[in-house]
């Protein structure tokens, strides 16, 4: 085994890892990113037209994790035996440089400030008894005001297009009236609304809701970001989600950060480097570096460092903590430990409106981050008292570019056949004349929903797989059903000839066979109490203070908004405090 030394090791070359690498090299550190996948460059494998091949892209998962090497096991309840997630379906982790930040859509939200202190806010409004038994409702221990400069910074790096509501307390545009105040405008004007989104905007306003154009990390115009890298204007080609954007319009670590980093002599990117564990010193209180497997040579390599940043995909972060012995594994029976606790997801269901045949929705036209949404039923923007659930959902038309294979396999919807006689009629009608409306909602954390190591299955490197114990709970199902019921007036107002409302069903278990969302969260959550959080407010491990764990793994609850904006802001927030506080005096930044 060979041994080398660097100041900081960063595990994973997605958004969080790339942001930390940029910040730490700016602080003068030598930084090595270890990425287990391949290098990925938009100029070569993301080129037009070869990259816009639906079969190779979204269907055979060109940019996604190859499960043959490692996956997770899943069960719904603690009394079941977990079985492997053998085929990608319900969620789609990325692999390779850029990670999920390369194949994402680009919806780029900040956060609903109330969500950051959801426990405190729910108790203040409705009392402690409003929280259902078994729900681990928690605060982030960070405020919107503290994070605002980092949301602003991330938007400028991402080249985000959007319309503000208020800037420094003054109304500055027709943006989301529920959005928190901003210190500055979006770097680019909002994306255009496609026809479907326009219909939704008009109808939602007519029934008294507050529609706004989504903030999108899809460039509405040519843009140069603060790192000097350039983006081209989005042409609504529809190949965002699952693809690498041949137009250089969708923000990705590959386009927006790595071109600047790669020129820095203090920066090293090692691909095909699968980290097996973070090494700790003899008393387990300090990381000494990592051991990784070089997938090209099949040799183990020990890399030493003063600082280790775990910034892989959400559940890989938790997996690596468990494999390395960082923090105490969560035990749902004794309700002790924190690593694996508060594992969360999001609730997402799609409803569909069919329009008269003279209206063509041209659903192949789209941009992954663009669309029109309402926040009237998200976060604490409505009264939960009479409804009796915690959580909410933005509702939107987010026409990201519907491709024919996905549309055909998914079927025409409603009660139409999914093959054979009558199928083509219905498919043509749905593809040409319908539009989709999603309720993209929160998911709360529960005592018996968690992550741990599987006792039976292992990966290609002989390490135990991560085990998910997850299912839908009554609170979240009722939230979804309520919010979806609020879509019905929009359907009627837009003149739908018919519509189908998609909801979770009472008692329905989580189904791993159907794509829902890749917005998994929690498992290594941030907070004020080391008994209920794995990392402190700066995303620093309570147990091993020279380890920081960055990503959606830090979310105590699954929020209604898409997570990437929050992940990027937390990455910049953590990096700022590492630079200004930790590096001057390495040690715990919050006393346990």
């Amino acid at each position: 085994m060979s041994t080398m030394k660097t100041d900081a090791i960063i595990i994973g070359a997605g958004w969080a890892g790339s942001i930390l690498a940029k910040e730490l090299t700016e602080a003068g550190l030598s930084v090595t990113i270890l990425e287990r996948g391949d290098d990925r460059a938009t100029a070569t494998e993301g080129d037009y037209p070869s990259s816009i091949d639906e079969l190779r892209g979204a269907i055979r998962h060109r940019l996604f994790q190859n499960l043959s090497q490692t996956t997770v096991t899943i069960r719904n309840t603690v009394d079941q035996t977990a079985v492997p997630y053998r085929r990608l379906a319900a969620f789609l982790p990325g692999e390779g440089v850029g990670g999920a930040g390369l194949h994402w859509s680009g919806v780029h939200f900040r956060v609903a400030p109330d969500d950051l202190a959801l426990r405190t806010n729910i108790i203040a409004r409705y009392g402690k008894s409003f929280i259902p038994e078994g729900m681990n409702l928690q605060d982030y221990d960070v405020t919107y005001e503290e994070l605002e400069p980092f949301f602003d910074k991330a938007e400028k790096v991402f080249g985000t297009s959007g319309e503000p509501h208020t800037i420094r307390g003054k109304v500055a545009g027709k943006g989301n009236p529920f959005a928190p105040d901003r210190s500055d405008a979006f770097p680019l004007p909002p994306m255009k609304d496609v026809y479907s989104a326009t219909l939704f905007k008009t109808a939602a306003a007519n029934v008294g809701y507050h529609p706004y154009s989504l903030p999108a990390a899809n460039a509405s115009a040519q843009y140069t970001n603060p790192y000097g890298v350039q983006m081209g204007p989005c042409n609504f080609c529809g190949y965002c989600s699952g693809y690498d954007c041949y137009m250089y319009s969708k923000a990705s670590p590959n386009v927006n950060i790595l071109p600047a980093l790669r020129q820095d002599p203090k920066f090293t990117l090692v691909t095909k480097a699968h980290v097996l564990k973070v090494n700790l010193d003899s008393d387990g209180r300090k990381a000494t570096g990592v051991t990784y497997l070089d997938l090209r040579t099949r040799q183990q390599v020990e890399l030493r460092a003063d600082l280790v940043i775990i910034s892989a995909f959400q559940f890989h972060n938790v997996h690596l903590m468990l494999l390395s012995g960082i923090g105490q594994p969560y035990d749902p029976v004794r309700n002790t430990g924190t690593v694996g606790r508060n594992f969360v997801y999001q609730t997402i269901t799609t409803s569909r409106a069919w329009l008269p045949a003279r209206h063509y929705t041209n659903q192949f036209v789209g941009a992954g981050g663009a669309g029109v949404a309402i926040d009237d039923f998200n976060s604490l923007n409505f009264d939960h008292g009479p409804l009796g659930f915690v959580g909410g959902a933005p509702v939107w038309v987010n026409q990201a570019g519907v491709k024919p294979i996905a549309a055909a396999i998914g079927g025409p919807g409603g009660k139409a056949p999914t093959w054979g006689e009558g199928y083509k009629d219905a498919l043509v009608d749905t593809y040409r004349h319908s539009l989709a409306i999603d309720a993209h909602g929160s998911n709360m954390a529960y005592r018996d929903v968690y992550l741990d190591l599987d006792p039976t299955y292992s990966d290609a490197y002989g390490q135990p797989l991560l085990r998910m114990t997850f299912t839908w709970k009554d609170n979240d199902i009722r939230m979804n059903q309520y919010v979806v019921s609020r879509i019905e007036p929009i359907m009627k107002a837009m003149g739908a000839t018919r519509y189908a409302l998609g909801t979770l069903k009472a008692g329905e278990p989580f189904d791993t066979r159907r794509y829902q969302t890749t917005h998994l969260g929690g498992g290594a959550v941030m907070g004020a109490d080391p008994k209920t959080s794995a990392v402190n407010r700066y995303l620093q491990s309570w147990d091993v203070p020279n380890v920081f764990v960055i990503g959606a793994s830090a979310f105590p609850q699954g929020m209604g908004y898409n997570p990437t904006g929050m992940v990027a802001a937390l990455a910049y927030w953590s990096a700022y405090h590492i630079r200004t506080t930790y590096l001057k005096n390495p040690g715990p930044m919050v006393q346990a």
Partner: protein
Amino acid sequence: MKTPSSTRRTFIGGLLGSASFWLYSNHEVWADALAAGQAGPYTPRYFNEAEWRFLNAACERIFPTDGHGPGARSLGAPEFIDRQMDTPYGHGALWYMSGPFQNAPANLGYQLSLPPREIYRQGIAAADAYVRDHHDGRGFADLDAADQTTVLKALEQGDIALGSVPGHTFFEQLRQNTLEGVFSDPLHGGNKGLAGWTLLGFPGARADFMDWVNQDGAPYPFGPVSISGETA
């Protein structure tokens, strides 16, 4: 039946199961798919004659020829599926295929040890045997369209036990691959003449709607184009 060259078979066989398989075979196999013959009737490489007859008949029932235009057979879906059998996907190299393999509730997903190639090989053999038992010795391809549809519906609903492959699993494999063949870029062997895309009004690889973001409900005016530049 045409067989792949021995060098290619050795190459793929030697890499199967190694971490490098996906990396290297990816480019090789897709390039191979691209280079496959464009002219003349297609000769299957993976499926034998009986399987090929079954596959052609079943694809056509799933996506039939009708007033909307050609069905899966003339669109080349069987050819597409045959070619897919020699990709990493066909070999199961994109799936976690380590044991133990155990029964689990359906909502926890696929739990068989079979890659797509074997789902077809075992599924077709079992389905054809079932049909022969119930239709005086005639195979699936020799039934009339209505009887074929009845058999496929029974498979879909899990009413036929096929032994190693549950009927529903086999049917869903067939349905998904058929629709992939109908609607994927023709470079993969299906969607002949871009007729799948024409049916839906999908413009294929145009992928530039800068001037067509919002046409106030009017249809997009241009027909499809493929990655190789073919138009319809």
